[in-house]
């Protein structure tokens, strides 16, 4: 596949790994913010290629994992309202909330449809004029503009049964919150690729300037990730942190201005609650006044009851990078991919699911 296979080149990857090994002098701690990178690093076994001096930490960049239980509970409650079809990306179905999951709600009779796109949810609205279609708007800056666009389409077509439950989250504010807490010590950050396709590389400048941390925006193929690590090591070595782009075919410094405009037209920033991190100012998106008629919060009322966290679950600490999955007493015992307690074990980008695979893999090889 074009623009993918070239960046999986084995020979070039091996040479780049050699270069990284050669270059890596002192111990560095890097965070891949994005869950997609966590997934790709596991998929290609990239950790095995890196020298022991390079430690990779997984960040809170999995939209599913950082969704707070209160929001998840509300989505589940919304799906149970009469006349409602809840449309969701497949990712959310298995995530356990305080009391249930969308998957369980579906089994109990809620009409929940898995869609690939906000466009598909909009089509459901056209095809079911007497039902209310609630689209569960999750995702970061890569996804939010697509949902903003669907709202503009609904407006243009005068579709009046399409609603969005916006629990979108923004990346730069949460990175700031993480760094400000001082809980994690980092030398470099592999910045998300597709979020940056929208927002560009400029919003990360503060990381380099204010915190002295190296930044590189990366794509998701092996060469993309390795190149970003190479860039980070060079920045760390030279003592000149900046924001570089290792994914230039997909990301421009200014991002996609049109998409930013549409996102800003429909949404405004608001405080958002992140699992494990708590409320982060300006890190969420809600519908602007002019688009309130598409807002689930305005059109429906549900009271799912007070949210509660699974006892002993460390997903929150793990998302902040202050605990390892193996620090959690539930990990691998009570909490497994078959019986997940926390979201980090469900999502294929979740740190726990990734670490579960990784740990079993190490155990398998050491035998």
């Amino acid at each position, binding site marked *: *596949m*074009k*623009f*993918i296979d*070239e*960046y999986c080149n084995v020979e*070039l990857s091996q*040479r*780049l790994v*050699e*270069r990284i090994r*050669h270059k890596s002098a002192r111990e560095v701690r890097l965070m891949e913010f*994005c*869950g*997609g*990178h966590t*997934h790709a690093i596991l998929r290609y076994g990239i950790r095995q290629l890196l020298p022991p001096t390079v430690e990779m930490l997984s960040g809170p*960049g*999995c*939209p599913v994992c950082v969704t707070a239980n209160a929001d998840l509970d509300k989505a589940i409650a919304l799906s149970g309202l009469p006349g409602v079809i809840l449309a969701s*990306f497949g990712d959310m179905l298995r995530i356990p909330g305080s009391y249930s999951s969308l998957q369980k709600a579906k089994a109990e009779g809620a009409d929940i449809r898995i869609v*690939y*796109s*906000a*466009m*598909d949810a909009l089509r459901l609205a056209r095809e079911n004029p007497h039902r209310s279609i609630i689209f569960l708007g999750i*995702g*970061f800056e*890569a*996804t939010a*503009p*697509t949902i903003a*666009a669907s709202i*503009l*389409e609904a407006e243009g077509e005068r579709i009046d049964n399409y609603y969005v439950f916006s629990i979108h989250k923004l990346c730069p504010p949460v990175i700031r919150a993480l760094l400000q807490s001082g809980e994690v010590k980092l030398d470099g950050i592999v910045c*998300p*690729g*597709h*979020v940056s*396709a*929208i927002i560009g590389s400029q919003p990360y400048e503060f990381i380099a300037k204010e915190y002295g941390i190296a930044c590189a925006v990366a794509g*998701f193929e092996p*060469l993309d990730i390795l*190149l970003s690590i*190479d860039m980070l090591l060079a920045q760390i070595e030279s003592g000149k942190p900046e924001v570089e782009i*290792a994914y*230039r*075919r*997909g*990301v*421009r410094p200014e991002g*996609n201005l*049109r*998409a930013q405009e*549409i996102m800003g037209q429909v949404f405004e920033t608001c405080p958002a609650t992140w699992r494990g991190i708590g409320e982060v100012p300006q890190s969420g998106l809600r519908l602007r006044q002019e688009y309130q008629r598409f807002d689930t919060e305005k059109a429906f009322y549900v009271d799912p009851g007070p949210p509660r966290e699974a006892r002993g679950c460390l997903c929150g600490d793990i998302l902040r990078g202050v605990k390892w999955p193996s620090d959690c007493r539930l990990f691998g015992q009570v909490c497994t991919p078959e019986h997940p307690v926390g979201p980090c074990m469900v999502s294929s*980008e979740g740190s726990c699911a990734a670490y579960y695979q990784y740990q079993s893999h190490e155990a398998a090889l050491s035998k």
Partner: protein
Amino acid sequence: MCLAIPAKVLSIEGYQAEAEIAGVTRQISLRLTPEVKVGDWVLLHTGYAINVIDEDAAKETLKLLEEMCEVY
């Protein structure tokens, strides 16, 4: 993260386009990338083209990688 993969735009009608990845096709939206022309490659995420792929930059990155790794 956000799964997005490169797709080639086959035809355009207003904001709608048909895009193709290795024989798999789908109607996609160009709302976020109205500048797209037929034959362009886009980054496709949840049915929306979220960016146009910069083919020159793609080549340059590969060239850069080749150069960087020459001695290794």
